[in-house]
């Protein structure tokens, strides 16, 4: 069956399609991105370093990358459960729930930001209950572990503070995890679990030894997509973040702030740092995914 010819592609025209791919990628991705680099190239190295390492900018990197990471991890966990429920169970309204998952894709993010703010601000219908609860929780933490400035780290309010950023970023990232996991879960035959059970595995073992290894690559992809999406998110976050300098300012907002002052170079300098950092992180996550595939498959 396996003749040497099998390695040849079924579809002809590799040269043509590769050329097309490269042109397409250049027009849509590479040229606009290189414009950012070229614009920055007009700056002296000292100016560049000064622009991208001022305390306010550094604080925004920490916030943007930190909250995006947390939001992506939370999405990884709950997205897995959501995908599991949607694939494995049939229940009335399943299709509606399934369609709801796509909503963050389609909704203009500004609308999402305004809606989230309306719900979670202190006079919103969820915020009026949750905000006092949150404040009390933070207070308890401060009593228990007084060494850490919890209110500063976690934010004393829901909307107009750091938790708001987390909410917005979780919202925009959710569909990425669910939609990457769904097809993989659908392919995962229930027989596998049954076989594991007949071989004497308990539920925990089935989960960690049989199911999770199969899902790991897709889960990491979904996580990476959600993380990348969260890093670049601007529209919804500015409405709910409160935007206090050095506290709840995300990096994309600082880019806009620079533009607002006609400082095109400073803005692109920060953008370049974000681009490079995101690229490196995504590369690392891809490597991790490759590794996990090999590790679990052997």
């Amino acid at each position, binding site marked *: 069956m396996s003749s040497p010819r099998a390695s040849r592609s079924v579809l002809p025209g590799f040269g043509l399609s590769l050329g097309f791919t490269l042109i397409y990628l250049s027009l849509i991705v590479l040229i606009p991105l290189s414009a950012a680099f070229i614009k920055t190239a007009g700056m002296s190295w000292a100016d560049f370093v000064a622009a991208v390492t001022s*305390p306010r900018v550094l604080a925004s990197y920490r916030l943007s990358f930190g909250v995006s990471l947390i939001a992506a991890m939370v999405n990884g966990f709950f997205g897995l459960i959501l995908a599991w429920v949607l694939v494995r169970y049939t229940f009335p309204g399943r299709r509606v729930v399934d369609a709801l998952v796509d909503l963050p894709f389609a909704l203009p993010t500004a609308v999402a930001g305004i809606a989230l*703010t309306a719900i979670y601000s202190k006079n919103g219908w969820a915020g009026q209950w949750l905000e006092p609860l949150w404040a009390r929780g933070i207070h308890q933490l401060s009593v228990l572990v007084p060494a850490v400035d919890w209110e500063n780290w976690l934010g004393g309010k829901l909307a107009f503070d750091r938790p708001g950023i987390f909410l917005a970023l979780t919202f925009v990232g959710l569909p990425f995890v669910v939609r990457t996991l769904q097809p993989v879960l659908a392919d995962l035959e229930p027989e596998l679990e049954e076989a594991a059970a007949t071989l004497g595995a308990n539920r925990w073992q089935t989960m960690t030894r049989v199911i999770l290894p199969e899902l790991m690559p897709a889960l990491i992809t979904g996580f990476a997509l959600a993380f990348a999406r969260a890093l670049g998110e601007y529209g919804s976050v500015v409405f709910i973040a409160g935007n206090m300098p050095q506290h709840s300012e995300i990096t994309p907002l600082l880019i806009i702030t620079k533009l607002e002052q*006609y400082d095109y170079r400073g803005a692109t300098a920060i953008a370049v740092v974000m681009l490079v950092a995101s690229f490196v992180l995504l590369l690392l996550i891809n490597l991790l995914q490759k590794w996990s595939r090999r590790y679990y498959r052997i």
Partner: protein
Amino acid sequence: MKSKAVLISLLALAAVSGAAAKSIELLNVSYDPTRELYVDYNKAFAAYWKAKTGDDVTVKQSHGGSGKQARGVIDGLQADVVTLALAADVDALYDVAKLIPQDWQKRLPQNSTPYTSTIVFLVRKGNPLGLKDWDDLVKPGVSIITPNPKTSGGARWNYLAAWAYAKHKQGSDDAAKAFVAALYKNVPVLDSGARGATTTFVQRGIGDVLLAWENEAFLALKEFGTDKFEIVVPSLSILAEPPVSIVDKVVKKKGTETVARAYLEYLYSAEGQDIAGRNFYRPRDPAAAAKYASVFPQLQLVTIDAEFGGWAKAQKTHFADGGVFDQIYQK
């Protein structure tokens, strides 16, 4: 060159003499709170221009944050005229893209600002904290809503008004800086634009006082009712001058210079001034100002030129990166 100029003036003459009624389209790029004003004004100007020349003018409006709008024009938005929140944003049209001459502000009367406004306080009904003047705002526990001056034109006026008050009262720049720092300590949310800040205050119920354009404050009263909010006028505030200018490069290319000029000049006419007053902008013309005197409370108004040496200087000292505003947030 000369023959071309003659031809153009002949054409212009032909247009003015009404040989053939044309339909002209202008684009007015403005900032957020002027929407209602220019809806009114565009109608009036179209009627005036029709009567004068027989031509139909439709004026399209574009609104947004003042800085963002200026950037749009710099990046190629074909605006015939700009009517922005502050001179610094119009200056950028010269500084960054040379779309207008450097001395643009001298081309029309009164710094090219046909109407003015000021910064007042909007408080919740009954003024529960008894806020009367800027001094009351820096007291502990008062929560102030104002947008980020780095992203919002209106917020820069707010900041400068507070600074001017402290400077007048206490005399030194250091005292003014301390005052402004104390004021921003009481700000829990820095929205990116004036409309966002109004939403935070009005819809979300955050804050005790909103620093607002006078006309925005009046609009909020009109829209949400005097039973919810009231306006408090401080003893001193800043004379906010939102300037207007034609965009020379664009009108030359489109051949709309005459009508664009007339559009701005008509803002200074009796009718234009009346429309400004009706839309809660303070008219420049004494007759119109007298008519609306009962609407606009009297207070001491200082100008940016006298107090801060003009926009370019104020921008550099206070709002540029590393400027005073950044300093007060440094830990």
